Each structure stands twice: as C-alpha cells, then as structure tokens.
C-alpha cells in the first residue's frame, strides 16, 4: 500500500455537470436510470409515507390519552393502527434505507458507475409507488382493520374487502424490494472498482449485501402468502379456514418466515450506517472489521431460523417453540458482537460530536434496550406473559424507530452534503437529535411497564389504572414529533440557503468522499482504483495531506 493513487478530481476546476443539474425536465427525473436520481425519488416518496404513518401514530397516541375510546371509535382506531403499521413497515421502513441511501451510496462506495441494472432499479421505484399508492388508497379509503399482520381467519372471513387491495399493494411492493436486493447483490459482486476487495468494502456494503440476501430469499414467501390469502378470500378454498380443513397457523408460519427476517431487512442497513458513522467520526478503522462484516451475514442467515418466536402462544407445538426459542437467543449473539465492536472502536479514537455522531450514540443506547428486550421475548417462558402486550410494542419501536429510523436519520445527515452539495444547520441538527432521543424514550419506555402490567396491544380502550403511564407516552410522542418535524424543515431549508458543503467536509477516506458533491452522473471523473483499507485514516490513504485540508477549511 505504498503507492498513493489520486482519485480525487482536479479541484481547481468546478464541475459543470453533476447528477442534479444534468437535466431539469420532469422526464429527466421520471425516466432516469441514474441510481442517484432514483434514490432521490425514493427519498421523497419514502418521506411522504413516513409522514403519513406519523400522522396515524399521532392519532393512536391521542386516542390512548384516555382509557375510553372517545376520540376514535373502536372501528376507526383499528383502522388507524393498521394503517400506521402497514405504512410504516411496508411503505416506509423496509425501503427506507436500502432504496434511498443504499441506492445512492452502494455504487459510489464501491467505485461503480451505477447499479448493475439501472432499468430494473427504475422499475422497482415504479412498482413501489404503484403498490404504495394502492395500499395507501385502500387503507385510507375503505380502511383495513386487521392489523399489519393480516392474521387469518379474521382477515379472510370477517374483515372487509379492502384487505384484498392492501394485500395487492404489499404484493407489488414485495417485488420492488426483491428487485432492489437483486440489483445490490449483483452490483456488489461484479462492479467493485479495481482494488476494492471484499475486505476493503465499507461495512455499509456488507450490511446491504446481507439485507439483499433476505430480500431475495424471504420476500417471495410473503408474496405467495398474500396470494394465498387473496385466493382464500375470493374463493373460500380451505387454505387457512379450519372450518373447511385449512389451518390458520400455516398463515402465521408463512407470514413470519418472511416477516421476522424482514425486521433484519430493516435493522441491518441501519447497522451498516452506524458502522460508518462510528468509524468515521472517531476516525478509526472499525474494531474487528471481519467480525462486524460476518455478523451481518450471520444475522441474515440465522434470522431465517427463528420466526416461530412470534408463535409462542399461538398453539404451535411446544417443542417447536423451544427450538425457536433457543435459536432466537442465538441470533442475538451476532448483534452483541456488533455492539461490542462499535464500542471498542471508540477506544483511542478522535471522536467528534457532529449531528450524525449524536444519532450514532442514540442508536447505541436505543438498540441496546430494544435488542435486550428482545431477549425477554425470545425466552419462551417469558414471552407467554408478554406476547401481544405493550411490551412488544415498546420492544419493536425501540428497534424500528430507536434503531432503524435513528440510523436512517444519522445516515441522511451524514451524507446530506454529498447528496445535495449543501450543509444543513449543525445547530438545529443537534437540537433535533436530542429531542428525538428524549422524546423517544419518554414515549416508549413507559410501554414496557404497561406491557408487564398486562395492557394488551391493539386496544382502543384500556383499564383506568393504566392511564398515567399512557399519558407519559403520549406526551413523549409530542416531543418526538417535534424532533422529527425539525429535520424536515431545516434539511429543506438547507437546499434553499445552505452553504456549499465542499466535497469532503470531514476529510474522510471512503470512495464516496473522493468525488464531488453532488457527484457527477457517472459518479467519478476517473475510474477509481482502490489501494487502501476501509476507514484508513493514515497519511497514505490517497487523500490530500490532512494539514492542507485543515488549513483550507479553517
């Protein structure tokens, strides 16, 4: 690694064209095959659905302020939490990181010009939009009141026909997700820049690789399950309905075969971002790179063996429950390895407290709580009491909001300057990061207690003595909402009046920082050649000497 290859462009001449100003027409966006533009399309649509889901969350919390169902009637409430769950999971969280940040940065970080199949990439966005709009339409128009899990036989025999439409939406989105995963795997295999060996890949790439595996192997199963659900609904053909020989538990098996791995689709990319943030903001190579990389794969693979932990109380065989229980506790180990390695990376680093790093710290704390409470649920004997209570709600919000959404926000802040060329307000960034952290804990920590007290989930009205804790939770949600709305505002503002961020504001070694901000359509001016390890902050990492950069920016 002696020789240094300059892959940065000649900084003296500003690029005339980058991906954002390379065409302004609507068609140049809607028919684009540029992964960066598609990522931006995704960013906008995903944010839209997030806000929609957020509004439903607000309704839930407002209703739960009082024990009676007074703000929303039970029927409405049921539709609201279903809409909240479906939108947040299928329309927001699953595509959130892979399809936006992943889409944008996977090619950049491995030194490719684009993803392997740009047209398929665009197709996947259209599928996503089609499915998303269909589902959103059904959820808001007729309303579906099954919960996001669509358990049979309620969904096939009792709930209304919009279940079918929502299912269709989820089916279509499923294929969008499969295509994204397929594109990533191929790209990571074949399109790495010369010198970018597997063990020089940034960990963000590893986690996306693992995520893609799940997308490809898991999503088709939920697709076929939804198809069967539709068949059952339309034709009453005895797949799930016990009255005619079917089996309702089969649905749960098939559903969770996908949906448990899907929770790792949500969290793995976020873990990838956290690896980036922690390494880059403590300016150190990640501790135990190989272990962090392989733990992603391990989570993806073992994650397929544990779905039965959602069925502990469902009437599945108790022996099966025990097998699933032990495997669930095993799948926690790779996460543990990751957590410890992140912590160790901080050791002897040079840690800065920029906004993205604040999010990374939040992640560590919240993932710890979310993950560790997963251990309660993975223990069969414990889960009997906790299943379908607010303990579950709190657990998965800690991992889905506290870890994934926060990782996503951290990544968004981290790469915002690369994506847009603009710098957001660091001041507001820090304020909102802290509000989110505080608001989040206030919202969801009381729910653990509520859960242990025995407040069942999906309840429009609850026992009176539980009101105090619920009020805390609602109050926290208010703070959380403010914290979440702020980035929307100041990030948008930065587009209008933000300072130019410069190509590499933090002087980081990753490939994505060695091109201009925003990057040109083909990503790099010269095809990059990689001669350094990931997170190489030493002097010979091919970047300009840090002294000069420091002078330039100070």
């Amino acid at each position: 690694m002696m020789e240094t290859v300059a892959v940065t462009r000649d900084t003296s001449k500003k690029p005339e064209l980058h991906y954002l100003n390379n065409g302004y027409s609507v068609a140049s966006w809607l028919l684009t095959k540029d992964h960066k533009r598609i990522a931006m399309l995704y960013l906008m649509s995903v944010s839209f659905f997030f806000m929609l889901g957020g509004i439903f969350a607000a309704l839930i919390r407002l209703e739960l302020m009082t024990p009676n169902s007074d703000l929303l009637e039970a029927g409405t409430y049921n539709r609201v939490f279903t809409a909240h769950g479906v939108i947040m999971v299928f329309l927001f969280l699953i595509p959130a990181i892979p399809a936006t940040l992943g889409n944008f940065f996977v090619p950049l970080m491995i030194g490719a010009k684009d993803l392997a199949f740009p047209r398929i990439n665009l197709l996947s966005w259209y599928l996503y939009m089609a499915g998303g709009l269909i589902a959103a339409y059904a959820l808001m128009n007729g309303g579906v009141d099954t919960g996001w899990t669509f358990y049979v036989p309620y969904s096939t025999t009792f709930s209304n026909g919009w279940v079918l439409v929502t299912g269709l939406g989820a089916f279509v989105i499923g294929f969008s997700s499969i295509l994204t995963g397929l594109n990533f795997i191929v790209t990571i295999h074949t399109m790495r820049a010369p010198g970018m060996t597997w063990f020089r890949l940034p960990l963000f790439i590893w986690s996306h690789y693992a995520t893609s595996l799940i997308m490809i192997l898991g999503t088709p199963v939920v697709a076929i399950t939804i198809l069967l659900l539709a068949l059952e609904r339309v034709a009453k053909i005895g797949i799930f309905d016990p009255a005619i020989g079917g089996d309702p538990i089969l649905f749960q098996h098939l559903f969770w075969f996908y949906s448990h791995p899907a929770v790792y689709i949500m969290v793995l990319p976020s873990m990838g971002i956290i690896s980036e943030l922690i390494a880059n903001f403590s300016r150190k190579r990640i501790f135990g790179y190989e272990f962090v990389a392989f733990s992603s794969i391990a989570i993806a693979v073992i994650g397929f063996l544990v779905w039965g932990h959602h069925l502990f109380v469902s009437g599945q065989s108790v022996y099966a429950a025990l097998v699933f229980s032990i495997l669930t506790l095993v799948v926690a180990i790779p996460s543990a390895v990751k957590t410890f390695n992140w912590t160790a990376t901080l050791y002897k680093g040079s840690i800065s407290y920029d906004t993205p790093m604040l999010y990374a710290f939040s992640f560590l704390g919240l993932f710890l709580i979310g993950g560790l409470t997963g251990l309660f649920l993975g223990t069969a004997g414990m889960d009997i009491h906790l299943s379908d209570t607010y303990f579950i709600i709190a657990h998965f919000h800690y991992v889905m909001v506290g870890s994934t959404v926060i990782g996503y926000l951290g990544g968004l802040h981290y790469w915002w300057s690369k994506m847009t060329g603009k710098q957001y307000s660091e001041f507001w960034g820090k304020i909102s990061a802290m509000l989110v952290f505080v608001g989040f804990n206030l919202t969801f920590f009381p729910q653990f207690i509520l859960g242990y007290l025995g407040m069942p989930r999906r309840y429009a009205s609850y026992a009176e003595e539980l009101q105090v804790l619920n009020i805390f939770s609602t109050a926290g949600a208010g703070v959380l909402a403010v914290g979440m709305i702020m980035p929307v505002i100041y990030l948008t503002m930065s587009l209008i009046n933000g300072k130019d961020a410069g190509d590499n504001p933090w002087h980081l070694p990753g490939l994505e920082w060695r091109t201009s901000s925003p990057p040109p359509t083909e990503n790099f001016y010269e095809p990059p050649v990689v001669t350094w390890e990931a997170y190489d902050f030493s002097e010979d990492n091919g970047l300009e000497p840090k002294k000069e950069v420091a002078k330039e920016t100070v």
Partner: protein
Amino acid sequence: MQNNSWIPLFPDQASSFAWQVDALYFYIIAVCLFFGIGVVIAVFWFAMKYRETEKYASPEEIHGSNVLEITWTAIPFIIAMTIFVFGTYVFFTLYRMPADATEVYVVGKQWMWKFQHETGQREINELHIPVNTKIKLVMTTEDVIHDVFIPAFRTKADVVPGRYTYLWFEATKPGKYHLYCAEYCGLNHSGMGGWVYVMEQRDYDNWLAGNVSNQTPVEAGQDLFQNKLGCASCHQDTGSGRGPSLKGLFGKDQKLSNGQTIKVDESYIHESILNPQAQIAEGFQPIMPTFKGQVTEDQINQLVAYIKSLNPSAANSTGSNSTAKPNAPAANTATKPPATTNTNTNTTVKPAANTASNARGNK
C-alpha cells in the same frame, strides 16, 4: 388490578407460578443491566476521554483482537443459554397441563368469553374459580383467533378455531383480576374481556349454589348487559356496534326486516333474547346469538328492566319490575337446570366496583 399506587409498576401476583415468571423477568433484567450498563459506561467514558482534540486527526490504528472477539461472543452465548434453560423451565411449568385439574370449557366468540364449569354453570365474560385449586381451561372459538390473557396469573394462550388449546393455573389469592382477549379479533377486541373472580372455597360453593342478589333489578340488568353477557359488545349506545342501539327503544314501534312493525314491549325483548332470529330489526343482520340456556328467567327480567330504564318515559309508564309473560319459558327451564349463571358473587361485585369495567365496555 388491585394496585393502588399512583403509577402502577407491577401487576398482582396471584397464581402459583407467577413468582417464577417474575423471577425469570428479574433475572433477564439483571443480565440486561449487566451488559447494558457495561456498554453505556464504556461508550460514555470513551466518548469523553477520546473526544476530538485535533481536527482530522489520524489516531492510532487498532485492527481488533481475536481474544476479545471470542470472549464477547462466548460470554453472551453462555448467558443466553442460561436464560434459555430458565425460560424453558418456566415454559414447561406454564404450558404443561396438570392431570388433576378441574376443567372449565371456554369458547371465544366475537367479542365475548363463554365459560362452562364442569358442574354445568355457564357464565359470560366472568370466570369464578376457587382459590388454591388447579384449573385447566379447555378452549376453542366459534369464529376467529382470540387469546385468553390473565396478567395477574402471568399466563395466556391463543384460542384457535377448529381445535382445542389449553391453559392452566392455580390461583393463590382471592380477588378480582382482569381477563383480556390478547389476540386481535376485530371491532370490539378491546372490549372482549371481563374479570376472573378468585374466591375462597366456601364463597365459591355459595356461588355455585346460587345466591340472592343485593342489586336492584336495573343494576343487575346493567351488569348483565355490560359485563356478564356481553350484550354491550354489539349493542352500543352510539349505534356503531353490530346490533341496534337499545337506547330509547322501549315503547317504540320497531320496524322489522319483513316489513312489519311491532311495538317493543317486554315480550318482544324476551323473544329477542331467547329467539333473536324470529324478529329481525330492520337494517341489521340476523347475527344475534340466542341466549337460550344461558340466562335464567330472572335474568331476562333484569335485562328487561335495564332496557326499559334506557327510555325514562317508558319506564315510568310501566312502573315497577316487570313480570312479562314469557312465551315459551317452560321448555327452557326444563332442558337446562335453573341453577345456571347467577347474578351475584358475594365477594367483590358491588355496583361501585363495576365502574372500572363498565368504562371499558362502554363508551
């Protein structure tokens, strides 16, 4: 829940194995604190100690340490396995049915629980059991999946259509405990619940023998309507339930789906309860189940009294407790022994104690 503190933190511990579940809970909490506090302290400490002093520094490279990696893979693994063993033990205790238990049959139905004791008593949304006796619930459902959940006993199990599932417990403390449906089952899922009454054996025997009510008929009828029979799960005052609102019904002319009009009097209500398919109110589906065999004539009278009270003007006109002439009561009482569900428990049910539960079923 009888937890009277301002913020309840911990549910009642009222079954023989509740302490085991709690012990497991505290054990896992201890494990979590051990790892959680460790990691948090390390993060804080590193973050403070190694905060940036020089911009764009190149701190010393550390590649990792296999010894550390193996340590922090092995230790959590071993601890996780201890959790598993402990958890499995508790799981066995909870889900392994004792051979010598008293059986209670449970049928879930949107949105009520129906219980039947070995001795033939039926109850709805209430379960009376003696203390210190092993009870085994043999459960199934008429429609969708439900879930019997009694937090104070720390146990629950889904009730699955088309087959039987089982649950057992041995209550250790007399009292009144929440009974919930914990598997989402549609519109009134959150109203599908009631109470488990754990009674001293003597009280239980009394209850079995049937006792006189100390409630007024209207109160007793309200209790039946809201809680015990689960009428309110369909008949809500707002009219948004699956059945018509019964507010102000009494004394009105009711249109039936066959085009006829009928005056709502005691016998109409009586008929509606025992033989609901006979006269279908216009605009509704004939889905109301018959309550034949589950209510005594006494109780029907109480219900009638209550429904009347929903229309103050009508209640005045007819005055006191009705003694409506039932059309075919003889057949009922002949087939089912009269000692069925009783309106009363001599332990805890007082009108005042009902308000909490009313709030849940009621708007």
